[in-house]
């Protein structure tokens, strides 16, 4: 029996990076095949080649046993290959149906097809795979999960028999994930095949029939999912055993960040922070737990000078910085790892060297006598690349070429290199793979050991529990509780995050704890 899709010896080089190195990949009919690997392992590149977005430098692709030359997504679609990208390609003001037929020839050119017929055909496809969505609804009104369904419908409507999904669960809630998985199972039952790109072991174990692991552009191995354990997969993916993060006992000292009765509005002018008071001490990590959208973004902005509080007092190392600008806070010793790193942390079309001094450009040694010194900049950047193991061609590469994990490492490296007194880290591991996540967490703990006051804002409860010395729960702009991660009841914490329980008690910073500390495993799959 011939395979549905067979990719042999695929090699793709980008300047300075070997993205795919003689990769072999075989997709059988009727299977869900997971493509597992860390960020930058070459998963998306490989699938972009199959979808005709890139041309391979070497290698051949066979579809149903015949050699296929795929110059463009159009060719791919002709061969029955459809792809749903991580970032959706929909027109927000168009209806679902309009988006689905967009770019397809009408059956009665030059007129559009009758709306009724299109809706009917969409409804047939939706019903078959449980992809319920109203064809007449404009896309901007849909939730992220529904938009994804539209993307899948788009591919199926074009007759796709192979569906490539790039990190489909990254944007979904757990409930939406369940639904997606049901859809995928329905698809393979009807004889279609699915390629599922992911770096999450859990999902891969739950949904795939077979799994191919990529690392550094090479295939580490392919296995039937039922024959392999999560631990083995993790080792294949990362190339080594995961070590649990050792968390040495905290030694908190005096308060560095102090908020007293802080109020702030969001962009629409509605109250977003309501009387927030908290303290972060030198040498501790204070975690802010909460469901996304409960004032975390505004808290981050107030702390870093990007948003003015409407009331209250903010002290940094005893200095009143309530109305300080971002630059003044920077000078006072505050470092910031922004939640949206591509929008705020990086300048994509400037070099790594230039990015590595963002915010420090006017200071020695990078500026002397009013002149920028490129040699110092590049030296600084090379040191960071080396010390933080950033995978990049060199300081002269453009920041836009970095993968997510490496971009985050560079931001982290830049911010920590200033030896800050306080560090605000917002969603520092969002979208990162296991290796990078573990690395970032270690670095945050290192800062705590150095005596830095770390405020960690994260929607990942596991991360908050693993790193924090104290946890503040935020709900609708209020701190509704302070808990000790060593003796917290997860259920209780969940109820607080949902706003069901309020526990307005002050928890003092925990003084040096017992030697057992709080060891936790690396990201538990």
């Amino acid at each position: 029996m011939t395979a549905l899709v067979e990719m042999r010896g695929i090699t793709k080089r980008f300047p300075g990076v070997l993205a795919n190195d003689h990769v072999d990949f075989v997709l059988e009919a009727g299977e869900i095949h997971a493509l597992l690997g860390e960020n930058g392992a070459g998963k998306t590149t490989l699938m972009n080649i199959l979808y005709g977005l890139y041309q391979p430098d070497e290698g051949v692709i066979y579809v149903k046993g015949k050699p296929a030359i795929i110059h463009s997504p159009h060719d791919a679609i002709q061969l029955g290959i459809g792809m749903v990208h991580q970032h959706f390609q929909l027109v927000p003001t168009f209806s679902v149906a309009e988006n689905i037929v967009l770019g397809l020839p009408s059956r009665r050119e030059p007129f559009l097809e009758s709306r009724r017929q299109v809706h009917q055909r969409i409804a047939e496809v939706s019903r078959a795979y449980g992809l319920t969505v109203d064809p007449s609804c404009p896309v901007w009104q849909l939730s992220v999960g529904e938009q994804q369904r539209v993307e899948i419908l788009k591919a199926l409507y074009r007759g796709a028999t192979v569906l490539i999904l790039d990190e489909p669960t990254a944007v979904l809630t757990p409930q939406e994930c369940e639904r997606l998985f049901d859809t995928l199972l329905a698809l393979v039952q009807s004889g279609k095949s699915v390629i599922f790109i992911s770096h999450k072991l859990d999902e891969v174990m739950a949904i795939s029939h077979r799994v191919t692991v990529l690392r550094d552009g090479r295939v580490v191995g392919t296995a039937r999912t039922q024959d392999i354990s999560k631990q083995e997969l993790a080792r294949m993916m990362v190339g080594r055993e995961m070590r649990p993060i050792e968390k040495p006992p905290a030694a908190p000292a005096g308060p560095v960040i102090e908020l007293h009765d802080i109020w702030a509005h969001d962009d629409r002018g509605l109250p977003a922070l309501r009387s927030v008071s908290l303290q972060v001490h030198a040498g501790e990590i204070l975690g802010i737990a909460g469901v996304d959208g409960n004032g975390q973004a505004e808290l981050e902005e107030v702390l870093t000078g990007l948003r003015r509080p409407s009331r209250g007092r903010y002290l940094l190392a005893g200095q009143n910085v309530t109305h300080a600008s971002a630059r003044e806070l920077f000078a006072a010793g505050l470092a910031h790892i922004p939640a949206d790193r591509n929008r705020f942390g990086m300048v994509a079309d400037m070099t790594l060297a230039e990015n590595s001094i963002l915010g420090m450009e006017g200071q020695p040694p990078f500026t002397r006598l009013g002149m920028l010194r490129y040699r110092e900049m590049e030296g600084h950047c090379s040191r960071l690349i080396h010390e933080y193991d950033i995978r990049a061609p060199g300081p002269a590469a453009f920041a836009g070429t970095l993968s997510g994990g490496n971009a985050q490492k560079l931001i982290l490296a830049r911010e920590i290199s200033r030896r800050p007194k306080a560090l605000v880290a917002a969603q520092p591991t969002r979208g990162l793979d296991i290796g990078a996540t573990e690395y970032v967490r270690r670095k945050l703990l290192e800062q705590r050991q150095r005596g830095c006051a770390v405020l960690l804002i994260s929607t990942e409860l596991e991360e908050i529990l693993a790193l924090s010395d104290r946890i503040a729960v935020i709900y609708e702009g209020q701190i509704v509780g302070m808990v000790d991660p060593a003796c917290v009841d997860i259920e209780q914490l969940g109820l607080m995050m949902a706003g069901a329980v309020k526990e307005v008690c002050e928890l003092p910073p925990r003084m040096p704890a017992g030697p057992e500390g709080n060891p936790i495993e690396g990201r538990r799959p």
Partner: protein
Amino acid sequence: MTQRAALSTTGQRPSTAMSLLLKGSPILAVILALLLGALIIAAVGVSPLAAYQAMVKGAFGSPRALTQASLRAVPLLLISLGLVLAFRSRIWNIGAEGQLYMGAWAAALFALSFPDLPPALMLMGLLLVGFAGGALWGLVPALLRAYLGANEIVTSLLLNYVAIFWVSYQVRLPMKDPTSFLPQSAVLPASASLPVLPGTRLHMGVILGLILVPAIAFILWKTPLGYRLRVVGSNPNAARFAGINVPLHIIIVMVISGGLAGIAGMIEVAGVHHRLIQDISPGFGFTAIVVALLGQLHPAGALLAAYFFASLVIGADSMQRIVGLPVALTEVIQALVVLFVLASEAFRRRVRRVVG
């Protein structure tokens, strides 16, 4: 500048052939435009060879031609240097024409108000006043953009007409030369004539332009100010995050860019016409936008592009005189160059995206 070149050659380009094509695409565009122009010239019954020969001879054939082209290039160069800075910061100053007019007006008013100043003081004064005239005119859209978020493309464009009609009013009523029927001011005092290089007709503006080319490159790539401007242009959010005062930098850029256009206006008054006239600029402020883009938003590129455009105009004049080509056709050829250059930009962007 050299630093920048070194940085960009170390690895991000797809292949040498492709990179040559990408780098050379504006030149290729100019060649293609001239080829298409040749077809049009042939279509009206003139030999394209003879026409282009006349054009080249008119632009480069004699010291006089070279001088004329250089003088014509000065305002284009000064303005486009300011625009390089502005466009790199992604601030779209479309108001250079008006800024030029205000600089010209301020300079003429100054020279006529203080005719007895010694030449050295007069020149200093003209530079300052010319700069200030253009800078203030640039400041208006800058403030509107920085603090109210008004689109500077619209405001700066509309302010052009205000400035042009303001000058028109000035030379018809308050500043009109009573001894002339034409809408123009009185002749400026002799002390307000820009000094020329001995033995030539090249005035000081040429030198000023040549000094400013490396100066603007220095600001962009060797100073923290230039670094910040590039961050503001590439990613305003990152600029805010890094504590860069974005409104302040918008203002700085518009003041410099407006000021340079103002100096260009002053030079037209004090170096060329020696009085304020109604049509002091044949659209230098608009042509300079194309010059800045053709020069790849690089100061050295702007120098080449400014000289190229000036030569095109001077050459077109003689093409018209010698082979009798209508003026309109010479303008068609200029427009073709502009279109092809813009198209080549789009092509470059497309190739970059495909290559990844």
